[in-house]
């Protein structure tokens, strides 16, 4: 009897401990989320064009997802080059945009923002050229 109750107690305490632990992780996560959102909104206020970049990012993600969903829906990848072209232009444009965004927030030493923007445009044009040819 005694042994049983003690083991039951032990289980109870251990579950309590895990609850406490997960609660603390959740709280930490909430804190981090709050702080990062706050810094994000601050950054938006500080750099007004950041909003433009992020909206473009969001559109790219949506277009990519739509194409993949279409592929899954018809269950056929027949013009596979066309799918690759459409999907890669989204992914590539997204990658270029993110790298431009990083330089826009924290410019690399020796590379001014205007030059970064110019490089972004040139790289994007090359990407579009390749993708249009790939889709044939």
């Amino acid at each position: 009897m005694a042994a049983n109750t003690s083991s039951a107690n032990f289980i109870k305490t251990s579950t309590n401990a895990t609850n406490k632990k997960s609660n603390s992780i959740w709280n930490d996560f909430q804190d981090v989320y709050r702080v990062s959102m706050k810094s994000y909104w601050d950054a938006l206020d500080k750099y007004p064009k950041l909003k433009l970049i992020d909206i473009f990012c969001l559109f790219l993600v949506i277009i990519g997802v739509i194409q993949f969903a279409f592929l899954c829906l018809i269950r056929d990848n027949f013009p596979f080059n066309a799918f690759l072209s459409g999907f890669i232009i989204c992914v590539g444009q997204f990658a270029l945009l993110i790298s431009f965004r990083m330089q826009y927030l924290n410019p690399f030493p020796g590379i001014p923002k205007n030059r970064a923007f110019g490089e972004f445009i040139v790289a994007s044009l090359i990407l579009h050229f390749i993708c249009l040819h790939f889709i044939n």
Partner: protein
Amino acid sequence: MNKGVTSMNDDENELFKNNFKKFMLLLESNGYNYTLYDIQSSNNRNSNDIQLTKVDNSLYDNVIIFPILKASLKKGSSASENKSILSSKNLLSFFNNYNGNLMIITSPHINNADSLINLLNEFGIFPSPKNQIVKDLFQNKDTLLVSSSNLLNKYVYSVDNDTVYFNLGESSVARLDNREQLVPILKSSKTSFIDTTQDKNFEPWVTGSQGYLITGFQGVNNNARLVWVGSTNLIDESAHDINKNLVENLVNWNFNAKSVIKTLKSRHYHANTKLTYDELNYKINDVIRYEIDITEWDGSQWIPFTAEDIQFELRQVDPYYRINLTRILDNETNNNTFARYTTNNFKLPNRHGMFKFLTEYKRNGLSTIKDEDIKAIRHLAYDEYPRSWEITNSWVYLTANIVVISLFITFVILFLTNTNVTTVKKNN
């Protein structure tokens, strides 16, 4: 004109001629000229003056060999068995290399010549030894009557209406090897057996319908034909009238005058433009039509050959297509000498490489047809693929491309022109 050579065992020519007079007349009436040679008479012993072939030409189209005593042949050419005209090697060469047809008749009463038995064994026919004679107590005791229901090959001979009986007298019976070239023609009846009361040392060779009384063989590549008959009574005077139809059909089949078919011409072309391969090479997914003309010899002229089971194959190692050919019956091809068969239109597979256009028709008793044509089917050239806008599926991806590019242009314009936060907000 067909030529025939007959070798015989009978020392007395007159007796032989009397015995097989009607058979010889039958040969003549079917258009065969023949020459008789007496292998066993003393002046032909060395048989140098008898030749089946000369340099590269065969002197005869067909050879009928009547029963030959083993002993007599040995006496004649014991020194050079291989040089004898009737050595199995010579006869096999005549059959294989010169497309010669052979009719070999053996007798159950004698020890037949070794060379003939060896030759038959090589073809997969194993005749019963001396004195193993087929009996059937349900029939007349002296002669063996076999009903036409035991006929096995409709291309050699078939009886349409009532049952007919053939008189084989006293006959040997053969066991057959399991070969596709063999054409069993007449099997012994269910109630037949081999009488071993005379010589109890031997086991019966076969029993019942296991045995075959008449058997054919057809070479796969050259369509030369061989017939073995186990009884001289089939063709001699005693039962000529009752056996006449069977013998006539048997001889005509044997000498390639019956059930002979061949292809005249095969062609294939683009189904829509009628252009042949030489005018416009085939590429994958092209629609093609294949045609083949097949004709049959009816004994006096070439007539259309009709069948519903001829198949065309498009092969690259494995068949990509196997199509039943259908006969065309229009005015253009409706003539009396051949039948034109077609696959109708079919689409070449989505695979490039060397393809074989093949028609292979092998039926037991009919001469074989093999018509093949190897052609290259090319892949699409770089500018023959459909463009993206021609494929409806790719419209989605094409739109995505255009949207991303136009978004990019808008983004650049907005990014450069607007410095004010509020205007950007309005735009979105």
